[in-house]
């Protein structure tokens, strides 16, 4: 380990690193949460074992990286120098990759990506549809460096922005640059980051805090997780830059406990940054002191809200505070506090290095730069996509996302999580930016994008979100605590087929009251999933009420599975697969479903080889 005592030494360290000749072959393996769940850790181990057995350590290097973003096809392996991109690699494939590809020069054909639309095979990452049209600013290092090696980060200009800010820019100049870049908060609200920094700088106090909001509460969103797993030093560097700009000497990362791998990577990065002198006292000899520590969440969504977060950091129940005063005046332990999202920070080093003009040349008039989206749900390519602001939704869903699964039709895209709304298929050409999404009743949110098809019921989706909100409301104020419960009851009634037209009216009225009278952002936005689905899919609500019918065939109370005696051959496939089990019948005799026990999982329906089971 080296301690770096000046900006010059940092530059020298980087050039020393670049003199190091890299191994002839480099194997990058994804070591993010998604791929690790598919045994990518054993894959890396197998590579190492084979390489050791053959004594090839000098020629081949294995580099575990953060998420490549293409989670659908994980585990991913990228081989250099020839830049071959392998998908769905299992631990057993390590053998073929080393023997066939590296030692014999033959690409392992069966592990290449096949474009589902054209049937073409692609060996290179940049030829794959998923990566075309992406622009990686925040995710620039994910999949490219080993996140547990600070030297890898420094080789990619890591901590150069901090050096530049400390030695070549005054705090005011840093703030000016961030303001000029047009960067807005990526945590959901879209507040201009430079303006927030300026306000916190102007608050007089001996003690100030820099907080990174890594609570990532929107279920189904995993941008921040991947950033922290893939490039943790970028977040730390940005927090130190913010500390210099604002006049704070302490940083705090509030991270959810459900992300053990991200916690581990950040912890490692923080300790490396301390030993290199990128954190601590007198950073690079500049006289600037800054330390960072972590604070673990404990499974409360409301703690992503900034004032709840601050209470949670103080070891209290995570209930929101009344604003004003804002965190910039009274934050943690009542000291001025600047709080930003992970992705917001991840953009900062690039803005400092490449300049505000470069950043503001990307995006739309009011939304600058790029945004990372987590594509999930009924989409072919689940994964992370970073695109310039202003990209039409269609390009993201059908270009990068590869369209809808199983040849089904797109029904809606949900953005903004429990605070957001559903965007119907006919709004797909909308360029994505903060204002546009708001104008159609949704919001940017943190970047979760859940794609739904014709088999998803909008009443059911609204009910799902409300159930979430009811469980997560902190209970401090009545409209949110009681109102959301009532909203949920109404939705339950409708999805059970007992709703009335008056209930639909009450839904809307109650939703508006909750929105207007709740204390914090959670309550103020909780009716959005209901209101937006009612606006765009009103007829679906009415079908549940007037016809007692769920057009999507999802609401289980309105649904029964039935076996047609004409088509049933008594093959027993359904009975064998029913998880309850609740299908009776002898071999070669018509089967029967015991309706009282059926949990409506739909397994029999999808398994019957004769199409004898129908939904009614």
């Amino acid at each position: 380990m080296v301690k770096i005592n000046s900006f010059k030494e940092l530059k020298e360290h980087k050039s020393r690193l670049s003199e190091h000749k890299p191994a002839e072959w480099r194997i990058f393996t994804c070591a993010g949460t998604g791929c690790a769940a598919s045994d990518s850790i054993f894959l890396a181990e197998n590579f190492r074992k084979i390489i050791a057995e053959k004594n090839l350590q000098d020629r081949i290097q294995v580099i575990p990286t953060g998420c490549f973003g293409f989670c659908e096809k994980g585990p991913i392996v990228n081989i250099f120098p020839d830049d071959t991109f392998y998908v769905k690699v299992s631990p057993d494939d390590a053998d073929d990759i080393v023997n066939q590809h590296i030692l014999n020069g033959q690409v392992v054909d069966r592990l290449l990506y096949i474009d589902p639309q054209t049937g073409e095979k692609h060996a290179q990452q940049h030829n794959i549809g998923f990566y075309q049209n992406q622009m990686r600013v925040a995710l620039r290092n994910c999949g490219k460096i080993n996140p547990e090696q600070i030297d890898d980060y420094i080789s990619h200009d890591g901590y150069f922005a901090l050096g530049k800010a400390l030695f070549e820019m005054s705090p005011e100049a840093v703030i000016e640059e961030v303001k000029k870049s047009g960067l807005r908060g990526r945590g959901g609200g879209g507040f201009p980051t430079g303006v927030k920094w300026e306000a916190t700088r102007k608050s007089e106090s001996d003690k100030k805090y820099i907080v990174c909001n890594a609570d990532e509460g929107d279920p189904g969103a995993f941008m921040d997780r991947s950033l922290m797993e893939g490039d943790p030093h970028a977040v730390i560097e940005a927090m130190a830059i913010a500390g210099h700009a604002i006049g704070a000497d302490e940083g705090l990362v509030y991270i959810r406990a459900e992300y053990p791998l991200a916690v581990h990577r950040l912890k490692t990065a923080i300790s490396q940054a301390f030993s290199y002198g990128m954190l601590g006292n007198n950073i690079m000899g500049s006289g600037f002191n800054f330390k960072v520590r972590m604070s673990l969440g404990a499974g409360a969504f409301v703690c992503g809200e900034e004032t709840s977060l601050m209470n949670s950091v103080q070891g209290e129940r995570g209930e929101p505070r009344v604003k004003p005063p804002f965190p910039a005046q009274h934050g943690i332990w009542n000291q001025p506090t600047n709080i930003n999202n992970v992705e917001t920070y991840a953009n900062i080093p690039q803005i400092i290095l490449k300049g505000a003009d470069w950043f503001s040349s990307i995006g739309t008039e009011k939304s600058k730069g790029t945004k990372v989206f987590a594509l999930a749900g009924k989409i072919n390519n689940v994964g992370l996509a970073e695109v310039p602001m202003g990209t039409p939704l269609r390009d993201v869903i059908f270009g990068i996302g590869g369209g809808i699964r199983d040849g089904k039709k797109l029904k809606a895209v949900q953005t903004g999580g429990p605070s957001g709304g559903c965007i119907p298929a006919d709004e797909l050409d909308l360029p994505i930016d903060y204002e546009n999404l708001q104008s159609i009743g949704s919001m940017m949110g943190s970047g979760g994008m859940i794609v739904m098809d014709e088999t998803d019921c909008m009443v059911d989706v609204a009910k799902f979100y409300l159930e979430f909100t009811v469980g997560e409301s902190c209970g401090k104020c009545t409209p949110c605590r009681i109102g959301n419960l009532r909203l949920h009851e109404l939705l339950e009634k409708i999805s059970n087929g007992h709703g009335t037209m008056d209930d639909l009216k009450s839904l809307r009225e109650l939703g508006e009251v909750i929105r207007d009278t709740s204390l914090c952002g959670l309550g103020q936005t909780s009716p959005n999933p209901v209101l937006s689905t009612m606006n765009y899919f009103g007829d679906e609500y009415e079908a549940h009420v007037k016809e007692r019918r769920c057009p999507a065939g999802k609401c289980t109370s309105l649904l029964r599975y039935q076996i047609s005696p004409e088509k049933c051959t008594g093959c027993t496939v359904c009975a064998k697969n029913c998880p309850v089990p609740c299908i009776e019948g002898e071999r070669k005799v018509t089967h029967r479903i015991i309706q009282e026990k059926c949990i409506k999982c739909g397994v029999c329906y999808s398994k019957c080889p004769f199409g004898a089971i129908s939904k009614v």
Partner: protein
Amino acid sequence: MDSKLQKLNKFIDGLDTKEGALITTLHHAQELFGYIPEDVQNHIAHALNVPSSKVYGVVTFYSFFSTKPKGKYKISVCMGTACFVRGAAEVLETFKQELGIDVGGVTEDMQFSLDSIRCMGACGLAPVISVNGKVFGRVKPEDVRSIVQKCKTEGISSGGQGW
């Protein structure tokens, strides 16, 4: 004294400051005991010099903390949005049937407990469940029985994750 309590005391003694350290301490306690029973709550209250009511208030506010013991096999079904739209509710329902317990419950023989959680960040593999931290992706209702069976016959070693 109980060796786990001793470890907890050592952790508390090693804290930089007791102010604001309640949640950190609770995390540690849950790691040691698997859950946070009332006597441990009282012990922490005493050691950190805060009222027991405050400890109880914090423990019950955060869903990560449990006041009841969990089963030998801790099954968590992700009910995040990505998993939900890919059929997590049906998977959860099947687990309830198979184990005969509700969400938050433990089987009588203390072998299995069932929880639903909100997104573990493996949305690409939706629907996702975990058993003692080991993640299973793309789970279908018809896989449930074999997962439970696997626990009973071979056991499942921890994936080292917190859930």
